[in-house]
């Protein structure tokens, strides 16, 4: 089992490396160079040349890639071209803010999705199932900004002006000190993610409930609650974990719209900003971070899969 997990880990590292290369190449293609972008209208040839030298823009490409990679390995993400400070310092707070948003959304939507999905599966064909399935079908189809705008309209500006529609905190103060500001962005994400988890949970639960061992458990006279908790649920977890992983990864990369909408000071905004500013180091760092989150959550889902499957856990030895 450990070997299996180690192998997954190794693959993940390789994928991350490949992604880093791709990201690096992609940022090279950005029009205009970062030095020019920083200086903007004040660019003079001398200042440009000096800044280029300072930013090692004249080194060969592979050398820049390697030194960047080396920096990544030791947690040095380089200097932000735009602010002149270390990327770590610039992004630290934002990463924290995004994580808070993601965690809040995950903590709410995962149990909610699992519950709704199971409920729906157990009530298959009845009104409760129809309502849950219908609602999740509709919500899953809507783009995030549609949900976000609707929420703002309802809860912030027009009908019930009870919640702030934008996030703002004085510098130095963390966003989570103002919980009311987190409500709408979190809620939007929850509404985005829960339907997928619920639908997947319902599907796997139905499949598991239809399986031979669940029928056998019933024929053994095991009470229904125990059938579901001990015989059905463990088997539904692994496929659902995959979907949860995908959703978490989606949230990490795709919150931009939500952050944009609510002016949430997270990485999504920083990313859009960085691309506009040609702040290559920040773009690279964020891309790698998002890719890393994707890889890590997928790895976790795989581990859940391995742990819930005794065949893999015991190494399949007969």
């Amino acid at each position, binding site marked *: 089992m450990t070997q299996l997990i180690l192998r997954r880990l190794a693959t993940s590292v390789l994928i991350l490396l490949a992604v880093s290369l791709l990201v690096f190449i992609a940022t090279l293609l950005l*029009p*205009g160079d970062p030095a*020019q*972008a*920083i200086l*903007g*209208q*004040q660019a*003079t040839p*001398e*200042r440009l040349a000096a800044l280029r030298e300072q930013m090692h823009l004249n080194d060969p490409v592979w050398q820049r890639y390697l030194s960047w990679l080396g920096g990544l390995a030791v947690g040095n993400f380089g200097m*932000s071209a*735009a*602010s002149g400070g270390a990327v770590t310092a*610039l992004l630290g*707070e934002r990463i924290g803010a995004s994580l808070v948003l993601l965690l809040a959304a995950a903590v709410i939507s995962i149990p909610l999705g699992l519950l709704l999905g199971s409920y729906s599966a157990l009530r298959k064909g009845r009104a409760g199932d129809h309502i849950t399935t219908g609602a999740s079908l509709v919500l899953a189809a809507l783009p995030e900004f549609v949900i976000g705008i609707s929420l*703002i309209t309802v809860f*912030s*500006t027009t009908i019930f*002006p009870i919640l*702030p*529609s*934008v996030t*703002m*905190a*004085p*510098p*130095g103060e963390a966003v989570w000190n103002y919980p009311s500001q987190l409500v709408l962005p979190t809620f939007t994400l929850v509404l985005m993610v829960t339907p997928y988890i619920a639908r997947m949970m319902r599907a796997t639960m139905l499949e598991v409930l239809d399986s031979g061992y669940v029928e056998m458990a019933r024929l053994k006279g095991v009470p229904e609650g125990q059938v579901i908790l001990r015989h059905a649920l463990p088997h539904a977890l692994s496929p659902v974990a995959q979907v949860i992983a995908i959703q978490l990864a989606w949230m990490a990369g795709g919150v931009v719209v939500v952050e*944009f*909408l*609510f*002016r949430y*000071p997270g990485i999504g*905004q*920083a990313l859009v*900003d*960085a691309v*506009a*500013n*040609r*702040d290559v180091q*920040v773009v690279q760092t964020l891309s790698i971070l998002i890719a890393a989150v994707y890889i890590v959550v997928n790895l976790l889902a795989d581990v859940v899969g391995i742990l819930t499957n005794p065949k893999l856990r015991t190494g399949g030895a007969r």
Partner: protein
Amino acid sequence: MGLSGGGAADSLDAHSPVSTTDIARVLNLYEGLLYRDENYKLQPLLATRATPSPDAKVWTVDLRTDVKFHDGRRMTGRDVAATFKRITDPKSPKTGASSLAILDKVVVLDDFKVEFRLNTPTATFDDSLGQYSLGIVPEDYDPARPIGTGPFKYSSFSPGRSSLFVRNHKYWRNNEPYLDELEILNFNDNDALINALLSTQVDAIGQIPLALLEVIDADPRISILNSETGMWMPFSMRVDRPPFNDNRVRQAFRLVVDREQMIEQVLSGNGRVGNDLYSPFDPGFASHLPQRVQNIQKAKELLAQAGYPNGLSVELVTAPIQAGAVEAAQVFAEQAAAAGIKVKLRKVDTTTFFGDGYLTWDFAQSFWYSRNFLPQVNNSSLTTSPFNETHWNHPEFARLVAKANVTVDAKERNKLISQAQEIEYNEGGYIIWGHPNQADAYQQYVAGLVPSRTGLALSGFEFRRVWLGETK
């Protein structure tokens, strides 16, 4: 205070403000020698007066004696000299350096009197000193420890998000500022900006979309500050490149614009019609020239004469460089179509717009704040100008400007300015269709804000005069 714009590149450097939020910060932390008040009149600030020598080559400035920096030190002439040395440092010139190319050196006469020695006679050097990017800083200035003489002191700052300032108790004006704390927040989205005001998360916001002005005004809790300005958002045609190297084409393009409609559509009526001339507040403004109006027939004729009887097709580079810019481009494209001009819009992001391609676009847009004629020309309309967007190179124009520069007599100077403007009116590469108003909004309980012609938001960011009334 909520302001839109700005990003991770924000800084607190007194002399390198880039974004609107930078300007707002700089204006409250630092002060220059002179400044433009809400009526666009040049007023003394840290100086008590500035007087030119008869040949306009030496300007003597008397300083206030009661000004202290945030750390309690007294401001002296040495600080002034150091400040200008920093700005014009050839190794790292700051924003204001471009208009100070004429400055040879600053001589400290005594603690409160300095002399600006120029290499070229300049009759309007006081105007240059009135720029907001010339805040006086102590000799040992370090942007990491932003110290100035402004009404507010630095407390904390996070680029692209917000900054917090506190009241400067040692401010030289009695009682001011009234506010204990000033927080400037960045918004990169108008929607969020307005929502923040409506949900009373902020007290005032700068630069609201003009289209929403009436609507926001209708809200009883909110007041609107609608200021006429000399700002201009022109289309720029490169006069040295076809098809715009033919003046008939330029004239035709200027004639296809329905300026009234442009104001209506782009600015929701909140602006003044432009006459292809900048600096409307300059005392020498050529107000005698007839207002140019749309004349499709004439435009078509001119195009035909220039060799485009069947119209022509051009590419207009546009970017969200200012609220309304992209919209103006769209309206122009629509209007020009009537004269057989096919305008293809190429929208780029702001960084690209001001990147390598800037100053090379054949047909693009630009945006300028209120300036008087001569400083504006220095910036944009001479071969030596750093931002000569239209590649304007007119010897007679240059001669008139040079003469005006050294003419100390205001009346004489204004006449020269008027003549130079007439040349631009007839041959220039800018299409100046209007001067947008600056509209800000604030909660009713905020007092002390007045309309400002400077084009800077919220009374030119003079938050020292603001106080808060009764909060419900």
